[in-house]
């Protein structure tokens, strides 16, 4: 090659270029990982369990298994089915909003407390309706499953609030 020829791009990448590319890949694919890295290990664990539980609920709803056990299955009334669908939609929206908030790096305490309150409302009114719909021959196995599911979700939300506060303390965001 003559010395006066314009320089052509090389086939191989320099170490700094490789580092820059791998960094951008990490940023592109790992925003959630980066957001989770600022949280405590317990937060990550509780979030995983909570997400799995909500996903199980979504799968159970989507497969058509759940509605027959809930109030609609007992009463056959259309509003019970509609109510279940509305609550299903809200649960999915809550989960999505939680993850979006997490990725955006926003403060999660208020959001989690709001989710706790809403889940509590769903649990109390849902249990009351289910108990009323079952009438004189309640299905105690499903009732205990219903109570356990909601109690676990509520407990996990409370633990997530606690861990979020602790994460803020660790990262120095808390006052």
């Amino acid at each position: 090659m003559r010395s006066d020829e314009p320089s052509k791009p090389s086939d191989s990448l320099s170490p700094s270029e490789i580092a820059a590319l791998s960094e951008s890949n990490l940023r592109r694919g790992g925003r959630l990982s980066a957001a989770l890295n600022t949280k405590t290990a317990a937060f990550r664990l509780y979030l995983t369990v909570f997400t799995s539980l909500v996903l199980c609920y979504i799968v159970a709803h989507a497969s058509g298994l759940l509605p027959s056990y809930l109030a609609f299955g007992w009463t056959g009334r259309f509003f019970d089915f509609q109510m279940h669908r509305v609550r299903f939609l809200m649960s999915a929206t809550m989960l999505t909003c939680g993850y979006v908030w997490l990725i955006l790096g926003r403060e999660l305490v208020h959001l989690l407390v709001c989710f706790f309150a809403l889940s509590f409302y769903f649990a109390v009114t849902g249990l009351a309706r289910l108990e009323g719909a079952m009438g004189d021959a309640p299905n105690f196995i499903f009732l205990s499953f219903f109570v356990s599911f909601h109690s676990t979700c509520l407990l996990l939300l409370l633990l997530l609030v606690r861990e979020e506060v602790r994460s803020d303390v660790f990262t120095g965001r808390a006052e």
Partner: protein
Amino acid sequence: MKIKIDVYMLCELIVFSFALAVIVHTVTVARLGGSLLTSDDAVALTQELILYRAALTGFLLLLYVSYRVLKKNTTLVLKVIALISWVAFIEDLIAMDDVFFTPELITGQITQILRPVYLMAILFMVFRSSDREVGYAE
């Protein structure tokens, strides 16, 4: 003479008027019972849903009043109240087709008229309170 109206306090007035209307309406419907309610669905739901909703909203408003009296930050309580109120509204609108609406009663009419105003007022209070928290508003 100019009269300065505090919008936040006006919203508080709307919220408490609505809460009062809901409580009076709930008690009236519970006392008069099935004769007032036009459908079986409404009778069935009145037993469970209305009472729990009224109790939960009443508790949250009581919590808000106590926070106001103690001069604590009310943002979180307002957010929870607003979320539950909007969810209850969506449930009524989509799922229950307004089965609770009893136009025979004046309390039913007042509740139904005040509801959209209340939903807007509570949202305004949430935003104003959040702004105060971060220092955008006094």
